[in-house]
């Protein structure tokens, strides 16, 4: 309780509250603009937050992360175009409701479902914190190494149908992290005698290139298009109570999304698909799903907003990011020398609680903002595609240049921008590169410590937590192999073709 009160005191400063308001409202606007999304916004803002103190910087990013999905529901429902990709399922039932003349009802349900999803996840997270603080001392180097290894395996295997692509891109990320002067023996690795490579390839430069600059290129190379959502008539306040009739769908969404968010590397689509499928299975009217079902809408939106809270668990407790956005946030921690992991829960629990309360507050700010400004947002998001690309490109280069005032960084970011564009055009995943860089770095630091302490490989698993993590690694790989064998047999039985189904679908 003392830590909680101390956390509230940390939060009760005008800089932090202003950052929270700016992040929350900014995140809604960014989420509502199709083609931008939280990843692009966070990538652009990362360098700017380095000059702020940790809680202020982190609160802005957290605000954007937590609120962009609220904003994403707006174009998904009104113009059948999701803001961030995670709102794709919202279009299934939200847009048909708009076509039926129920846009106001769809938006109210989406906002309230998102609110309850977010608040439920944060409540669980807060209740779980004392337990995490209790378990934290049992996490040493070997446990963190194994958690990072598990994260990498899950990142690769979660890209179903693209496992080989995800694997090689994740390995590429690990490779990128090794380039430059290594910090222990001071030898050069893959610098090819180029001085500009001696300092290594900065994670932020890669992130800005892959996420922001590539998106700017995508938009600029695309056909110029201006979204024209119709304004919503009537007050959104009138339908707030309707969500209570869809408790079961929201409950399923909260639960599934929370679990999926906690598992590093599990794709957002997989998690949302599971929550949507659960709602359909348990619904009395499953046939209406995809044709404007309020239950489907609430299930997908409740699931959406439960993830930021859940994704904080591996990030704060272990220093292991579960996805690209949390990987970017991890870099903010490192820049400010705040090392997330077990010790954060032991020594700075107030800081952790301050973040939780900030997440709770952002949900309140966002829903209050949305209920009164939805029509204003429909006007703001009318930005032509190419014009938007130009703004993102300008912001990205400002962000890259401000890191070290280096034109080389801008050139490197441009190269990664083009690489990201190719990957996006070919529908290949970008996230494994970023997670490979972050988790590869964690493993490189931790493995020599583990190896130095142990005598035999079995010493790796001589503690309960490490044994559980090692068992999870084995189970995950075995489960994937089992799925492949079953798919292979089904394929043979159905068509007689000898094709590895997971890879060819």
């Amino acid at each position: 309780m003392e830590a909680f009160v101390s956390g509230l005191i940390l939060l009760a400063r005008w800089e932090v509250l202003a950052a929270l308001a700016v992040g929350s409202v900014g995140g809604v606007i960014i989420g509502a603009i199709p083609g931008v999304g939280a990843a692009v916004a966070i990538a652009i803002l990362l360098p700017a937050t380095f000059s702020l103190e940790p809680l202020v910087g982190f609160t802005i990013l957290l605000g954007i992360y937590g609120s962009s999905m609220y904003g994403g529901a707006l174009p998904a429902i009104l113009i059948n175009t999701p803001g961030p990709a995670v709102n794709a399922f919202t279009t299934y039932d939200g847009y048909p409701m708009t076509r039926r003349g129920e846009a106001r009802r769809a938006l109210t349900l989406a906002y309230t479902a998102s609110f309850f999803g977010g608040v439920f996840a944060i409540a669980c997270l807060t209740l779980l914190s004392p337990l995490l603080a209790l378990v934290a001392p049992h996490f040493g180097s070997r446990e963190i190494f194994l958690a990072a290894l598990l994260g990498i395996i899950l990142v690769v295997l979660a890209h179903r149908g693209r496992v080989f692509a995800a694997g090689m891109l994740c390995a590429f990320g690990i490779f990128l992290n090794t380039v430059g002067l290594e910090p222990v023996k001071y030898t050069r690795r893959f610098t090819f005698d180029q001085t500009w490579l001696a300092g290594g390839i900065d994670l932020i430069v890669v992130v800005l290139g892959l996420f922001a600059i590539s998106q700017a290129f995508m938009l600029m190379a695309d056909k110029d298009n201006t979204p024209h959502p119709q304004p919503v008539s009537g007050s959104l306040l009138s339908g707030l109570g309707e969500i209570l009739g869809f408790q079961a769908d929201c409950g399923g969404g909260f639960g599934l999304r929370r679990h999926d968010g906690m598992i590093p590397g599990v794709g957002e689509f997989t998690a949302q698909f599971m929550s949507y499928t659960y709602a359909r299975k348990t619904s009395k009217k499953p046939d209406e799903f995809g044709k404007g079902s309020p239950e489907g809408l609430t299930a997908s939106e409740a699931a959406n907003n439960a993830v930021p809270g859940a994704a904080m668990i591996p990030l704060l407790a272990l220093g292991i990011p579960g996805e690209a956005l949390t990987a970017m946030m991890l870099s903010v921690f490192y820049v400010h020398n705040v090392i997330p992991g077990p010790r954060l829960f032991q020594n700075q629990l107030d800081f952790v609680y301050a973040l939780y309360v900030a997440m709770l507050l952002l949900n309140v700010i966002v829903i209050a903002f949305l209920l009164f400004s939805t029509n204003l947002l429909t006007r703001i998001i009318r930005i032509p595609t190419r014009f938007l690309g130009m703004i993102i490109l300008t912001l990205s280069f400002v962000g890259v240049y401000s890191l070290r005032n280096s034109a080389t960084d801008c050139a490197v970011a441009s190269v990664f921008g083009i690489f990201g564009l190719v990957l996006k055009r070919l529908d290949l995943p970008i996230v494994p590169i970023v997670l490979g860089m972050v988790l590869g770095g964690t493993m490189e630091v931790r493995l020599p410590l583990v190896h130095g302490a142990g005598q035999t490989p079995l010493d790796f698993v001589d503690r309960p937590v490490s044994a559980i993590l090692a068992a999870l690694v084995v189970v995950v790989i075995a489960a994937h192999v089992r799925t492949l064998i079953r798919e292979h047999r089904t394929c043979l039985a159905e068509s007689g073709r000898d094709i590895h189904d997971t890879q060819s679908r």
Partner: protein
Amino acid sequence: MRIAAGRNDVAHQGIAGFVQTISQAGDLVFAIFFLAVSLFLLARLGGQAELVKRTGTVAQPAFWPTVAVALMTGFAVPAPHRFSGVSAGRGALGGGETLDSIRQIRALVHDLYLDGCPAARLGYLPSSIVFPALLAFRLGYRAPRKLGFAAASGVTVVVLFKSLLQVKVPGGAIYETLPDAMRAFMLTYF
């Protein structure tokens, strides 16, 4: 002659068809390119990552680059076979469209450096006004209102990043020509 011409046509169609096939199979080209890069890195591993004496295997500077490059190659070897047609089934664009996009982007990046490099000497504020306006012009916007919006977006970026968030961006040489009081203000906030 006609036969020869016919053969040439067939040959031309064959080459064009081959180029088109390669161009459409963007994922296959990417997989082969990635495999080539992985093999190149694997071949250069000995010269680019050192082994240090009296150091354990996992603490060797070359350990993680070796793991990474080996994994890259390991995943890339079967990739050309696995990739072919994977992205096409997902509604992704083929290599031809990707190449078109890259050509457009290359032209834009070229302009960006032509515009951006001299502009960098102008200082943060002037270059942030000029660069988006020129980029918007290059993207096909001709209406003064749109170009004005582009320039205004540049001013907003400067106010947001430098004036408010105090991001460290050096002042341009042109600021040196300003009167003392003005110069200090511009260097600090713009």
